[in-house]
């Protein structure tokens, strides 16, 4: 890790065209990768090349162009599955992480939840891992229970055990890394305990997969959802990995072309996995782009990505602490968190912090971060949030801290 600290991964910056931009002569400092990451030319060019030379609909096509497109599409699925430690047959492409979680809520949830059953989520979940469960619980008469977060933004396994001991828990849905607190949750342990209690686990990996090595097979969760656009890939595609035994017995979700085996007038039968859950024309170019993104991440090395995030987060935690009246949320140890840091400054609303940062071309996010229940737990309406990826450096953190000092001046603090 020391090697990484003295030699940050700055050599990749040139791969990211957006980072060459300036606003009012100031080079952009992009610290909002938790919202969406920037894309390397390798990803952008792979999609352009697909459209320029191989574009065709996939599957079923007899002609060479269609075979080429199919190979590119299904080849990307294989690489994406390998990247995540999963099987291509249980690697389903959706529209985004929200689509992946909804697939489970609708297909698994509506057939497996009933009155009295309990779905467990946590106070730190993203709305995409709360609202689908609210809806399916309301429909099925099941109950939604929240695990609380500690002062340092961490879950308690004891509380989990208590809830599981209560019985009736059918599903535990938990973020791998919180998009607000940065907390790296012990999902392997959570999945193991849920399994022992007879519950299945869904891990929302939207913030984890992009920035750390994840091996779904080892992790042991039944469902794992993530999204390409935060992992240096394109918009328009998300991923759901599922346990084969579950996927096989689950009814389809989105119905239409391609997910069927046979359509009769009254009813239909379904295609094999993974296609049973992919209706209509797939996000083909997007899969190609995501394939290029995981190739890129593998080439950098996910261990190095993780080390870089950790180092930068540690530096950010240290430098941000210099700002007066600041409150930093989440674990204070970079070892136990991902590359995202939320904070508040007493006397300046997050919105105003972001506005003044923008004047220095420092891009941070302000708001509830699609985590309103967590905001209420933290006792704030909004936080400011800086988040990192491979293209960030200590200089970016320094630029942020200067902008925060400038904000304090504007607000005469």
């Amino acid at each position, binding site marked *: 890790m020391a090697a990484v600290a003295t030699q940050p991964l700055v050599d990749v910056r040139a791969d990211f065209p957006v980072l060459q931009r300036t606003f009012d002569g100031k080079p952009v400092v992009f610290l909002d990768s938790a919202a969406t990451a920037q894309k390397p030319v390798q990803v952008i060019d792979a999609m352009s090349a697909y459209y320029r030379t191989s574009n065709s609909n996939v599957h079923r096509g007899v002609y060479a162009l269609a075979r080429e497109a199919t190979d590119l599409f299904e080849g990307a699925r294989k690489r994406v599955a390998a990247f995540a430690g999963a099987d291509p047959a249980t690697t389903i492409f959706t529209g985004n992480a929200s689509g992946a979680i909804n697939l489970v809520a609708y297909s698994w949830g509506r057939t497996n939840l009933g009155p009295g059953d309990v779905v467990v989520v946590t106070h730190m979940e993203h709305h995409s891992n709360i609202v689908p469960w609210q809806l399916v619980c309301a429909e099925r008469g099941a109950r939604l229970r929240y695990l609380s977060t500690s002062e340092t933004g961490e879950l308690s396994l004891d509380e989990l055990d208590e809830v599981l001991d209560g019985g009736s828990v059918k599903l535990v849905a938990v973020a791998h890394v919180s998009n607000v607190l940065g907390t790296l949750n012990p999902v392997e342990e959570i999945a193991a305990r849920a399994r022992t209690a007879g519950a299945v686990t869904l891990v929302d990996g939207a913030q984890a997969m992009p920035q750390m090595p994840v091996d779904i097979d080892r992790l042991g969760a039944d469902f794992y959802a993530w999204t390409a656009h935060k992992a240096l890939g394109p918009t328009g595609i998300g991923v759901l990995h599922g346990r084969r035994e579950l996927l096989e017995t689950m009814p389809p979700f989105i119905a239409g072309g391609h997910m069927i085996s046979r359509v009769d007038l009254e009813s239909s039968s379904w295609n094999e996995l993974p296609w049973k859950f992919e209706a209509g024309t797939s996000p083909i170019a997007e899969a190609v782009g995501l394939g290029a993104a995981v190739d890129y991440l593998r080439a950098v090395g996910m261990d190095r990505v993780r080390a870089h995030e950790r180092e930068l987060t540690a530096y950010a935690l240290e430098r941000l602490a210099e700002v007066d009246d600041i409150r930093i949320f989440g674990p204070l140890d970079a070892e136990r968190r991902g590359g995202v840091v939320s904070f508040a400054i007493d006397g*300046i*609303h*997050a*919105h105003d912090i972001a506005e003044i940062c923008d004047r220095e071309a420092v891009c941070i996010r302000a708001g509830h971060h699609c985590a309103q229940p967590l*905001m209420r737990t933290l006792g704030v*309406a*909004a936080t400011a949030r800086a988040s990192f990826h491979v293209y960030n450096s200590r200089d970016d953190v320094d630029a942020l801290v200067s902008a925060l000092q400038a904000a304090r001046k504007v*607000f*005469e603090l």
Partner: protein
Amino acid sequence: MDALYRDYILEHYKNPRNFGELEPHDLDFHDHNPLCGDELGVHIVVEDGKVADLRFHGQGCAISQAAASITSEELIGMPVAEVERLGADWVIDQLGIDISPTRRKCALLSLKVMRGATTGDASWPD
């Protein structure tokens, strides 16, 4: 001087006029800005068809708090029927600063809440 965070904006933000609750009140309304989660409520006392007194409460950024504070001074004493006719331009005039599209909802939240209390119409002012 800062073009957005002018002295009087910061002054109103730090010491908002007519903030708090008002019990009893005749009208009230509570709403939020879905973009940032800011919440604002209002309590109004009506006498002779006029806003006799009001209090805003909630959390928000400098723009939304200053807008509530500055306009509150104008709103007190105004006929309720007149409140219903106020539009976005009126708030922005009162603020006296340029408002970018991103901050527009911040500026308008207090008027939205006022109109919600007086007319029941909770749409964003144009």
